[in-house]
């Protein structure tokens, strides 16, 4: 590695304290270190890899579904299997791929972007990863045994209550409750980190948009997951202990489920998309060579999306037969949420129009995203028109909408983010030439898969059918979609190959290969365990460009408060204006989070098989290990 590739300011800082810090932050090698690590970058990487694996599994399920739908009356899988496939596909794509994938980016980059050394609660962070991994394994384990969830990803009662014998739905309720633990503590961790650990000088108006996205998402998680958890708890109890929450003949109510689910479900789609939009807001300024246009408006739009999204859930229930006043209100609210979408969209386009574009793979994907999100967004707006929605709901038109916003609005940004941050994460560059191929195949495949679904939907094709008759005019569109999904799969495989090749053969990456604007690029590629040898003072929204922030890494290199060389330590700063408050001791490696997660896995598995005694024992184990955890607070040992 040519030394000139290290930023000069960082070189000076490393020379001053790098060696000491290396020793202090060194981690245990081998398997033990692998289980006990609490380092946010390792955990973030794990999140990305695990979620990527779940994406592949879930994508393969989709390919099987598409193959079944290639022509009328095809006989690739039985109806039972098909129903499990789409239920598990939807559930795992949403819960075990999209959210955790973006949490992975958050884990890796949020501390780097705000200039700190780790997450606020590193052990909790490790815990949330282990719970994510174990709940994912729990959920996917259902498929090989033929008992995967089969009620769709929103699992409407009473179909999933009295009419669904077997363990299928229990996997769903328990798996999601289990995962909910991970998502909730992860969200708390992000919020506290972003509130209390920003580098000095990073006032709220200098916080990168990706961080705003992750924090807004995290707040939404805190308020959106409870209704889902309550609903799943009730459903589990209805199924196991004969409670009557959803039993109409005993005073229960089936629409209650729908309300609880969608009060979660609608915010959830923005939970997924906001960090993804944050990625776009990171990529576009860098490759437009200027600061984002209308930063305050974009921040406002992000937060407003988070808030308004709690008030639109009934647009998923327009065909239920609710009162017209309620339909009118939710129609208006749904239209209102377009405005923040428009603000962000125009801010990206405006930034591009005012800047000078550098076409990298990440930027290509961002442009592809703009097209896809635009098309997915406008079909969403159509649904806000109640009679239109009543006509088109539960048809393939809806499937087209949500893949445009989910694949186009989340997966394309995720790919953009992977290409953008890959050099930072691995220290290797990817091939720009192959990157173009990756983009072309994925983008064409994506449109070929999902665009025809608009048309089959308009032609009256309902969703969630395992087959259809000949002669309804749907054949060609389904064939196109299926072929498109194969192209898409090839594109994604090529993308995986590009990354694999880069990992072993790619050229080394400098600290700041793109000439980017945010602080993660002030660290090594890949960053050292301690991220920043000297915590800088942030002077602007684009600290890498202001010519002052980096300088502070040099000037503060003898300041104990910025180098913190004695133990694992990090800075605590004030919530609003990022002023210095204290130096906090941080915990180091520990196996306890892993043990707690394992005990919880035992507990949930016991519940699944009705082994309630075992579940009690597991609960006691959880309580004991958590006590041990709390007993050993950092700085007290």
């Amino acid at each position, binding site marked *: 590695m040519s030394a000139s590739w290290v930023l000069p300011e960082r070189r000076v800082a490393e020379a001053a304290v790098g060696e000491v810090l290396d020793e202090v932050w060194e981690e245990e090698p081998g398997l033990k270190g692998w289980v006990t690590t609490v380092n946010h970058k390792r955990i973030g990487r794990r999140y990305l890899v695990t979620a990527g694996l779940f994406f592949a599994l879930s994508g393969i399920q989709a390919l099987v579904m598409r193959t079944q739908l290639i022509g009328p009356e095809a006989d690739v899988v039985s109806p039972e299997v098909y129903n499990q496939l789409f239920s598990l596909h939807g559930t795992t794509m949403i819960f075990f791929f999209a959210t955790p994938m973006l949490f992975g980016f958050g884990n890796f980059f949020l501390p780097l972007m705000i200039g700190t050394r780790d997450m606020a609660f590193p052990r909790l962070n490790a815990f949330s990863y282990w719970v994510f991994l174990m709940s994912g394994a729990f959920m996917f384990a259902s498929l090989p045994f033929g008992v995967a969830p089969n009620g769709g990803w929103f699992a409407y009662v009473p179909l999933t209550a009295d009419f669904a014998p077997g363990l299928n739905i229990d996997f769903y309720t328990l798996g999601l409750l289990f995962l909910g633990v991970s998502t909730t503590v992860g969200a708390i961790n992000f919020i506290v980190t972003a509130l209390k650990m920003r580098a000095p000088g990073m006032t709220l108006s200098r916080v990168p948009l990706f961080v705003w996205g992750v924090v807004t998402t995290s707040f939404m998680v*805190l308020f959106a997951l*409870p209704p889902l958890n309550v609903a799943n708890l009730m459903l589990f109890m209805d199924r196991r202990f004969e409670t009557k929450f959803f039993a109409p003949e005993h005073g229960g109510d089936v629409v209650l489920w729908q309300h609880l689910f969608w009060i979660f479900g609608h915010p959830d789609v923005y939970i997924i998309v906001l960090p993804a939009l944050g990625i776009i807001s990171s990529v576009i300024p860098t490759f437009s060579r200027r600061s984002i246009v209308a930063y305050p408006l974009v921040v406002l739009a992000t937060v407003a999306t988070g808030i308004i999204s709690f008030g639109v859930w009934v647009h998923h229930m327009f065909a239920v037969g609710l009162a017209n006043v309620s339909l009118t209100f939710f129609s208006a609210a749904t239209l209102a949420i377009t405005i923040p979408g428009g603000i962000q969209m125009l801010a990206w386009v405006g930034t591009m129009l005012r800047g000078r574009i550098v076409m990298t793979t990440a930027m290509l994907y961002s442009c592809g995203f703009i097209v896809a999100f635009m098309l997915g967004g406008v079909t969403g707006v159509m649904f806000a028109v109640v009679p239109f929605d009543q006509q088109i709901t539960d048809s393939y038109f809806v499937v087209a909408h949500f893949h445009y916003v989910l694949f186009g609005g989340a997966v394309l940004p995720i790919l953009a983010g992977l290409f953008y941050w890959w050099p930072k994460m691995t220290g290797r560059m990817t091939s720009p030439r192959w990157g173009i191929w990756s983009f072309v195949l994925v983008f064409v495949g994506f449109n070929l898969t999902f665009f025809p679904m608009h048309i089959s939907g308009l032609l009256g094709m309902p969703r969630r059918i395992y087959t259809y008759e000949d002669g309804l005019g749907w054949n060609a569109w389904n064939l196109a979609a299926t072929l498109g999904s194969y192209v898409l799969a090839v594109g994604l495989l090529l993308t995986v190959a590009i990354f694999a090749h880069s990992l072993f053969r790619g050229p080394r990456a400098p600290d700041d290969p793109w000439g980017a604007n945010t602080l993660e690029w002030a660290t090594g590629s890949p960053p050292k365990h301690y991220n920043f040898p000297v915590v800088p003072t942030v002077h602007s929204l684009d600290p890498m460009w202001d010519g002052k922030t980096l300088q502070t890494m040099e000037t503060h290199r003898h300041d104990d*408060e910025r180098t913190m060389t004695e133990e694992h330590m990090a800075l*605590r700063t004030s919530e609003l204006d990022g002023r210095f408050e204290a130096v906090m001791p941080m915990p180091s490696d520990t196996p306890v989070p892993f043990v707690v997660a394992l005990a919880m896995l035992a507990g949930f598995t016991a519940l699944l098989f009705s082994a309630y005694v075992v579940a009690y024992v597991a609960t006691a184990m959880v309580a004991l290990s958590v006590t041990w955890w709390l007993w050993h607070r950092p*700085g007290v040992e």
Partner: protein
Amino acid sequence: MTTLQSRTTAASAVRPDRQAPERPAGHTTAWWGMVLFLSSEATTFACLLASYFYVRFADPGPWPPATAPPPELFWSSLETGALVLSCVPMAVAVRAAKGGRRGALVLSQVVVWLLGAAFVCFQVLDYVVTYPESTISEDAFGSLSYTITGLHTVHVIAGLLMVLVLIASTAVGRLGKRRPEPVGIVALYWYFLAALSVAVYLVVYISPYW
């Protein structure tokens, strides 16, 4: 606290055991962690209570259903009273921790613990003595009432565990003037439980009489 002051205290705080003896300016990460956790918990109970009213008003029949006994107020009033009362010793404990009075800290925590335990006992008595016949699976009314009170009781039991850990920590000297923080954080949780018990009481026990 001015910036200058906090900087000097922090300079001495570089070694953890020399960290600010008085409370540093601003809330700590742990405080925020607990507050955020509680806001999520509060939402959970808000959903349950909202479901209670949703089911109640969606059901055309009488509430509580003719077959279900109306709620009794004896044990439930006692238990709610006990939990609300326990906030007083909890507040004493927080002050004792800040002032570093270890004896007072242990004593007040023990009182808190006993009141919390009383809450759990009263709740169990309420279940078995007042409604020996009814069950959680009778009807939606029963399911909601038992789930809400039951989940709240589980939370109180978790709180009792936390207080127990605090008492133990204080006893072995891991807690006190130098690190009063955990007491304040457990106290937050405890106040939350008390406030919740009032809400649960109003909804589950009082509202059927409206």
